[in-house]
């Protein structure tokens, strides 16, 4: 029982990270029809911004975090939209998929070439463990869950409670109508890219101490985030959160109790089942837009 509790807490922590990545993925998809195949690499990169700031800039860890956030907002938010998405967007979904696949390759190679090919240790936010009814729970996992909850609550408040946030939702639901109503659609799309950049940076900060920072990290993270987004509902921020946590918990519990070699297969079966039975996702509404 204590084992199970331990596993579930670890699973929720992993899932919370997946959820952050999936939420960003869904936001970008909603407003700009961008299926970002580089989303995993987007999580991998900010950790290296921070490491580089510490190594080459001599910055302390907190300063490096700030630098990492700023660079990510510029590179993964503004530049990604302006240089990669905007020129391709009007050609349709598929060319954009190719473009983001190429971008993923580019980011991986760039990190390998200019920083390191080996896994890099990354400072943890917290190290100690606490014991709760026989289960050993790492404070790090609790910090992860806490940070993710704060981030998601803040995001939900922003999207639902502020004028800008509601304009962004309007853009996601019907860009044409939003434009007629005076919403600056292009700016709202940029905001979602910036929010995505912030979310992946946060995820990077949380995940890198556990997995170490490595240029190939994006592959598994990206896949997990896709699955989370689809399982929960491709057009729902809430769905992405549920999906992330589900995938995270499933991952940990399956690895411990069922089969370690096929650990990665379970989320895939979940994905296939959800798409075939309930394509709109567990929490999603059926999509009215034919895309």
């Amino acid at each position, binding site marked *: 029982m204590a084992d199970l509790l331990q596993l579930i807490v670890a699973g929720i922590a992993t899932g919370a990270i997946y959820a952050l990545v999936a939420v960003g993925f869904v936001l970008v998809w909603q407003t700009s029809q961008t*299926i970002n195949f580089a989303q995993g690499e987007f999580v991998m990169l900010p950790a290296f911004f921070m490491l580089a700031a510490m190594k080459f800039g001599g910055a302390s860890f907190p300063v490096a975090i700030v630098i990492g956030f700023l660079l990510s907002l510029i590179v993964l938010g503004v530049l990604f939209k302006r240089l990669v998405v905007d020129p391709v967007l009007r050609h349709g*979904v*598929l*060319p954009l998929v190719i*473009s983001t696949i*190429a971008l993923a390759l580019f980011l991986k190679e760039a990190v390998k070439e200019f920083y390191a090919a080996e896994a890099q240790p990354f400072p943890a936010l917290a190290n100690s463990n606490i014991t709760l009814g026989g289960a050993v729970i790492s404070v790090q996992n609790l910090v992860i869950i806490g940070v993710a909850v704060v981030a998601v609550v803040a995001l939900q408040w922003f999207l639902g409670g502020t004028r800008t946030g509601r304009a962004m939702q309007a853009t996601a639901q019907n860009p044409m109508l939003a434009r007629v109503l005076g919403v600056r659609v292009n700016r709202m799309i940029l905001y979602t890219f910036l929010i995505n950049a912030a979310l992946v940076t946060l995820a990077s900060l949380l995940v890198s101490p556990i997995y170490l920072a490595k240029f190939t990290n994006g592959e598994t993270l990206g*896949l997990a985030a896709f699955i989370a987004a689809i399982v929960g509902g491709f057009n729902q921020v809430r769905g992405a959160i549920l999906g992330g946590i589900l995938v995270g918990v499933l991952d940990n519990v399956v690895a411990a109790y069922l089969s370690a*070699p096929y650990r990665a*297969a379970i989320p895939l079966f979940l994905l296939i089942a959800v798409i*075939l039975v309930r394509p709109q996702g567990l929490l999603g509404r059926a999509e009215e837009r034919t895309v």
Partner: protein
Amino acid sequence: MKLRWVFAAIAAAALIAAPFALKTYGVYLLSMWAVMSIAAVGLNLTLGYAGQISLAQGAFVGIGAYTAAILTTHGWPLPVAFVLGPLLCFVVGWLLGYPALRVQHHYLAFVTLAFSTLVFLILRNEEWLTRGIYGISGIPRPNVLGFAMKDPRPFYFFCLATTLVVALFAWWIVRSPWGRAFMALRENPVRAASLGVDTRRYTLMAFAIGSALGGIAGVLYAPLVQFIDPSPFALGLSLNLLLMVIAGGSGYFLGPFVGAFVSVLLPEWLRFTEGLYLMSYAVFVMVLVAFCPTGLIGVGERIAAAFARRRAGAATAAQDAVAR
């Protein structure tokens, strides 16, 4: 039209002459181009003509390659693999088509992506069959019509000949009523159904045939590389094949050949940039997609059309001059 035949003749001559001018590695790369072209032609049928996104073509190459590797290392001749590999892929591809009856576009992309990853996991974990991460080595090259294919050059010609056969087959499919039905499916499935096209059957067929061609590519891949392990058949290959089809020109007959050429050879030519070669390649792809979303063949066609217009313009001007 005449120009097209001239180009075809030049291309054919170059493909036949090239291996005599190249070193072993160059011949290997050309053979790889031929193999990847076959897989890309298959994906082009599924995606370019029938409009069904598949991110699993690499998995079918893997299934074909493992079929060939397992059979030939157990003493079976390669022709058996040429029958069984594509057949297996045809059946699995048919089954993979079922989700496409329910969901489309990005959902279909993700189902096929999941399938592709599942195949990879099976190849890696079922050690009794595939030897897992240790891979299968010592895959023999076949004798064809009494010729031993051990050396790279004869084997390249074998690959080239197979590619030609596949290309002719694809040419025939595209022009057959089936090909027309595929295109109808891509352009407007509802209208196709209302005109009496059995969309259900043709969707499954598009997947099955495309996958079977992926299987043929795999059956050639195994003796070409002579050692296979699961890693080349991970998601990356499927994405790469998708890239070949889109970058070459999706829905154009020659698109996959051009796309495979770019994807297999361009990174090698960029090797002079050393560590930067994959980055340069990625940038090239991003720029290409931004400026010519219809792929390289699309660009070629645009240029050809511009020339034709100019020539037509010159002709009418000449006529005007004569009339005056």
